[in-house]
């Protein structure tokens, strides 16, 4: 279990006074403090961890966010920003003495500008909400995390979310132009803008993926892109992980950049097929879903080349979609993967490391050995183009021993990812989940520098404390922090 810092007794003791003050700042129904109504906010997508907060505030405007932060800063109250609460790494997990700052009511699309290919949206707009708003005009917002129906753009910025299509279109950081921010001191300012590569230091790049450590994002200017003429997928099944890995190398080496290149291992294929009946080959050890874009003739040409490449690797089966509907069928199993694994196991941990793609066969072999050693099943889904690996570790949350083993298994996998030249997290973020593994990837010096940058924004460590950085040496963990007011 991951340790959370002790609550500040002086904050807990003043709970009623604090709630009253929050009500004064946020009239109406924007303050939640009744235990029953706090319940939905006690966890996020990492649901093994639960902690009701002191209170939840749901502001409607940037000015309200600023007033709330100014108050919390003055009182030395910790603040946990929250979007839709879909974080798989516990990025929005509350603390007992913290105010959860929920951005979900700030859900307006403020402007869409096709000539400049941008949209200005509030932090609580959902990822898919942006694409839905512009798709009738042929445009889309590129990053597409699996949770895109629910997850909010403010959370995407905080976690630098990716998705299945980032090999071509990049992650959140590559699709932003500007942010409106509120500091813990309640100062409001904008970084970036409506233009590319704002002059000066790249604050936009630093803030993206900073996991709520530096400031609260209230408005986001995103790039929107015109979609291609069309897209189509193919499926290729192979006799071993090694062979499928070689096929991936050959595809990348051919000069084709597929818009998606997804890899599933045998347990993942079986779980998805049982759930979605997508017609996946159950005799395969590994399967690729490859998607290309362009006109129909261009798709035909690319799929033809890809088919030719895959044929060189003795495939068990090749299935090229002839229509958009057949593409949807190929994707159906993959898109339902989390639900599928949820059906065969009461609980699972979705891990998220990245490895050099050439290491895939050896890493999968090691994960298989660990799976036997821990006595826990694992299914692997892999964004093969960019090396982002998602092992789904199945366990039983009602059995504390099973959960402890699953957590240790996950930590071993992530440590392995770092050992082979990769990293702890490709797109889910560190949150609380991987916080204590940061020392595996970074030296003390490197963590100190990151902490110093955090302190430059949030000197009292009130913003989303106990996340990202190990508690040792973490000022948020000191029993008494000097108050600013």
């Amino acid at each position, binding site marked *: 279990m991951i340790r959370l810092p002790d609550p500040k007794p002086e904050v807990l003791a003043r709970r009623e006074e604090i709630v009253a003050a929050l009500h004064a700042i946020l009239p109406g129904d924007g303050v939640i403090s009744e235990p029953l109504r706090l319940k939905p906010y006690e966890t996020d997508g990492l649901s093994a961890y639960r902690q009701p907060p002191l209170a939840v505030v749901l502001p409607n405007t940037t000015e309200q966010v600023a007033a709330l932060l100014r108050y919390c800063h003055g009182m030395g109250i910790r603040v946990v920003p929250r979007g839709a609460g879909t974080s798989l790494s516990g990025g929005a997990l509350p603390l007992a003495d913290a105010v959860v700052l929920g951005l979900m009511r700030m859900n307006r699309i403020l402007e869409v500008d096709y000539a400049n290919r941008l949209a200005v949206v509030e932090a609580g707009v959902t990822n898919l909400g942006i694409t839905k708003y512009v798709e009738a005009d042929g445009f889309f917002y590129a990053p597409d995390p699996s949770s895109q129906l629910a997850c909010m753009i403010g959370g995407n910025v905080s976690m630098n979310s990716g998705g299945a299509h980032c090999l071509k279109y990049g992650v959140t950081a590559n699709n932003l132009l500007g942010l409106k921010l509120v500091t813990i001191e309640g100062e409001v300012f904008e970084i970036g803008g*409506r233009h590319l590569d704002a002059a000066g230091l790249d604050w936009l790049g630093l803030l993206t993926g900073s996991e709520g450590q530096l400031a609260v994002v209230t408005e986001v200017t995103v790039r929107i892109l015109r979609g291609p003429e069309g897209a189509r997928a193919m499926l290729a099944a192979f006799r071993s992980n090694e062979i499928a890995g070689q096929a991936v190398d050959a595809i990348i080496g051919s000069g084709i950049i597929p818009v998606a290149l997804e890899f599933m291992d045998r347990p993942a294929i079986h779980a998805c097929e049982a759930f979605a009946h997508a017609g996946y080959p159950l005799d395969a050890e590994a399967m690729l879903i490859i998607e290309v874009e362009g006109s129909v003739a261009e798709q035909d040409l690319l799929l033809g080349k890809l088919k030719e490449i895959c044929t060189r690797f003795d495939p068990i089966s090749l299935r090229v979609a002839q229509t958009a509907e057949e593409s949807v069928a190929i994707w159906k199993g993959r898109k339902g993967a989390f639900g599928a694994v949820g059906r065969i196991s009461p609980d699972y941990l979705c891990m998220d490391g990245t490895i050099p793609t050439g290491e895939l066969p050896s890493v999968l072999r090691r994960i298989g050995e660990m799976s036997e050693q821990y006595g826990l099943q694992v299914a692997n889904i892999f964004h093969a183009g960019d090396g982002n690996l998602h092992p789904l570790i199945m366990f039983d949350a009602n059995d504390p021993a099973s959960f402890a083993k699953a957590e240790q298994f996950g930590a071993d996998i992530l440590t392995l990812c770092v050992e082979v030249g*990769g990293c702890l997290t490709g797109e889910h973020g560190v949150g609380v989940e991987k916080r204590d593994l940061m020392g595996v990837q970074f*030296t003390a010096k490197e963590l100190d520098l990151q902490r*110093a940058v955090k302190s430059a924004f949030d000197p009292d460590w009130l913003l989303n404390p106990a996340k990202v950085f190990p508690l040792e040496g973490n000022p948020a963990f000191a029993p008494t922090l000097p108050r600013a007011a």
Partner: protein
Amino acid sequence: MSAALDTEAPDTEAGVAAIVAAAAAAREPLSIEGNGTKRALLRPVQAARALSLRNLTGITLHRPQELILSAWAGTPLPEIEAALAGHGQHLIAEPPDLSALFGTDRPATLGGVVATNLSGPRRIAWGAMRDHVMGIRAVDGRGEVFRSGGRVLKNVTGLDLCKLLTGSHGTLGVLTEITLKVLPAPPAVGTLAVPVRDLAAGVAVLSAGLGSPYGVSGAALLPAGAADFGLSGPVALLRIEEFSEFVAYRLRRLREELGGTVLDEATSRPLWRAVGDAGLLRAAAADAVWRVSVQPTAGPTVAAALRQAFGARLLLDWGGGLVWAAGPATPKAHAAVMAAAAASRGGFTLFRAPEPLRAAVAVLPEEPAPLAAIGRRVKAALDPQGVLNPGRMRAGL
């Protein structure tokens, strides 16, 4: 700044660290450079000594199948481009060769291009240099080595100091090794050239191209054409880079919608180099050069203002949002650039100028006060003695 600086050029990272550590101990500022090709960019650095990375060279890792290349910061860019080309790959952001603009015959280094976050025409479609920096090794202002990112394509572990250092002009750390995402170079290229009556009409053409489903990878506007390429008058350029069958098809579709003529590969390659390198700006030797970045539809407004203020020579890239301007190296002209950028809610960079002008004016836009305060604390965290390129970006920083 002159080449007469006392320059040290170590050939190891440890050597770099030792020099910075000694400078920090002595509180003696260092001018940080690669081959020194961009000394005329931004503010002059007040330092008696220079630390050059030019001897810290070599590609340390190239895994074509993993789309990853790492090299020491002093590696000349042409060496990296050649190694990539050998595997049919390229640098995604198309960093320009500015040796002509800066009047030098030395090549830029990888570290210099990353430290200045320089991107070419492809930036509009495929991202900036900073978007493809996957990992760095660097020496901070204490003379201590640190890393950020890594050698994989997707990584959100910890705060992204790669982004913070890219484009920090050597003020927050000395980049020693850089790992880039690279991609297959499309085998073919072609261009649609559309004559337009004015710049606003030109940006409308570029917006239509970039808003098309055809994957336009370059969108520039030449106010005075390009005589060397047989292009006159204001002309809008749209580039397609793809497999050859796709290039022909997509240019045909764009031409059906927008008119114009198709330029072949032999013309397209040097033409887009001349756009990226700003050769088509035709800046006079004594001119100052600015880059203004605004939303694309504001490009013509900025251009008109600068023409009126000082008869600026102009070149528009990135769909019209990047305005290159050349004109007299005077505070008055600079003030006009600042005003035009501010009026369009964009930013500016004094990109090339004689030292007196660079020392006298703000070469970058002011930051909001709370952000400026954060910036000072970040600088103090990474470079407590202020020895790394002090004053390069802003006075007193």
